[in-house]
């Protein structure tokens, strides 16, 4: 059980790096979607007795993060008919190395943090930290609005992983609320993307740093 869990978290950490290395928007969206899908099934591995709520939550998370949100992003991408190339502020090789460094540092850091005995053998905490840092890196180091949304998704996946540590003590309804917020957020960002596109004819968020009349 723990081995499968660690394997899935390891795959999620690999998908962080895939998102950092992808030079095209569709592959970045795919990496974020796959990560959401992989992390969606984790609650089923952590809990032994499957309640209806738990299964519904896992299915809902996997469905929302793996299919609904990515398809919204793809639609926004097609609607805005933008160039598919990702424009990095930090190059692909440096961002890959930074992501790997973050993953290793997360491993080292989580060794010294006090954890519950049932979590000390899992990679939940390092995975959460690494995913959150990689998501933040994606938001900072990419210029296009859609790639920043992907970064936000990865960041949220990190927060979700962190939340799994508290699975026993927080009701899954909280996570449902977060998921709802996320979906609404993606909707809003979709509208914003459309607005940016109409105003500037590109999705480069660097255009938004200056104030105009």
């Amino acid at each position, binding site marked *: 059980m*723990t081995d499968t869990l660690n394997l899935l978290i*390891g795959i999620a950490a690999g998908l962080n790096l895939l998102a950092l290395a992808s030079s095209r928007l569709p592959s970045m969206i795919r990496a974020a979607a796959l990560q959401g899908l992989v992390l969606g099934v984790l609650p089923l591995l952590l809990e032994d007795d499957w309640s209806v709520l738990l299964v519904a939550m896992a299915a809902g998370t996997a469905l929302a993060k793996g299919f609904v949100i990515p398809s919204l992003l793809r639609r926004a991408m097609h609607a805005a008919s933008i160039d598919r190339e990702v424009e990095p502020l930090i190059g*692909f090789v440096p961002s*890959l*190395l930074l992501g*790997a460094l973050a*993953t*290793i540092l997360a491993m080292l850091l989580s*060794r010294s943090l006090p954890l519950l005995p049932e979590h000390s053998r899992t990679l939940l905490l390092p995975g959460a930290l690494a995913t959150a840092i990689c998501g933040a890196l994606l938001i900072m180091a990419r210029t296009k609005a859609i790639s920043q949304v992907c970064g936000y998704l990865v960041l949220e996946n990190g927060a979700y992983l962190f939340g799994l540590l508290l699975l026993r003590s927080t009701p899954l309804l909280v996570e449902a609320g977060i998921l709802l917020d996320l979906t609404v957020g993606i909707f809003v960002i979709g509208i914003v993307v459309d607005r940016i596109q109409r105003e500037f004819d590109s999705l480069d968020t660097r255009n938004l740093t200056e104030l105009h009349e």
Partner: protein
Amino acid sequence: MIAWAEPVASTLLRAIAWIALAPLVPGIIHRTKAWIAGRRGPPILQLYYDLARLWRKEVVWSSVASPMHLLGPAVAWVAVLGAALLVPTDAAHAGLDLPGSAILFVYLLALARFGTAAAAMDTGSAFEGMGAAREVSYAVLSEVALVTGLLALSVHGGSASLAHMFDASGGVGSALLAGGLFVVLLAENCRVPFDDPNTHLELTMVHEVMVLDHSGPPLAVILHGASLKLAIFSVLLVKAVVPLGQHSPLVAVAVLGAAAAGVGVGVGIAESLMARLAFRRVPLLLTTAFLLNLFALLVEVEGGRLR
């Protein structure tokens, strides 16, 4: 029987086996590529015929070449053969058991590359200089990946001697190592997607351009050295990934040979499916290989702690 006779005889035997069997690997790769493309392709033994033909030809010396032009290929071949002898071919009769031979292995391969590159630049041809520059700049990145992979293996095996560090677990770490070492194999041996061995357009050649001025027996030595290096990396990849330790020596050697041939088929398939990468995309792929090996190392270190 003198005490040192047995190891010396076994080493000699393994050297002869390496020399005799290495040209098979490029033959398998070419055959696979031809098969996928729907051609009949050259015979698997083609490289043997080529080597025999080159060995009979006379050498044409450039008028500006120094002795380095001959010395380079010779040094490279001996260094690659030395590296081959360090790689254990089965569990019982391990390779030359030197402490820290993993480091010697990396340095011997680097020495071989230096020999080829120095011989290439010796004639002062601009194209060959360019090829040497490209080969060495690929090597800067692929060597990091190779050393990281060897480090992961030595952490797993608990030894820095190549003879003792191949104790494959067949787990996640092995899967990562397989990916990383396969990319290193392609890069170190100048295969597609890093270099196209069939191209004859000077601007795009990397390894092939370095040997343009060589002819006759020195060229044969270079070609044989290249095939030997390919064989070394195939065996290294198999030893790193496939658990062979529990089998009897004979079975282990048979499995090793079959798996190394399988790696040749894999290279052929990869070359048929992929196009050459744009030059500026190469560092990304080599960094990926480095990270795969780095995470294999991480799995070894963390896995030991979590278990």
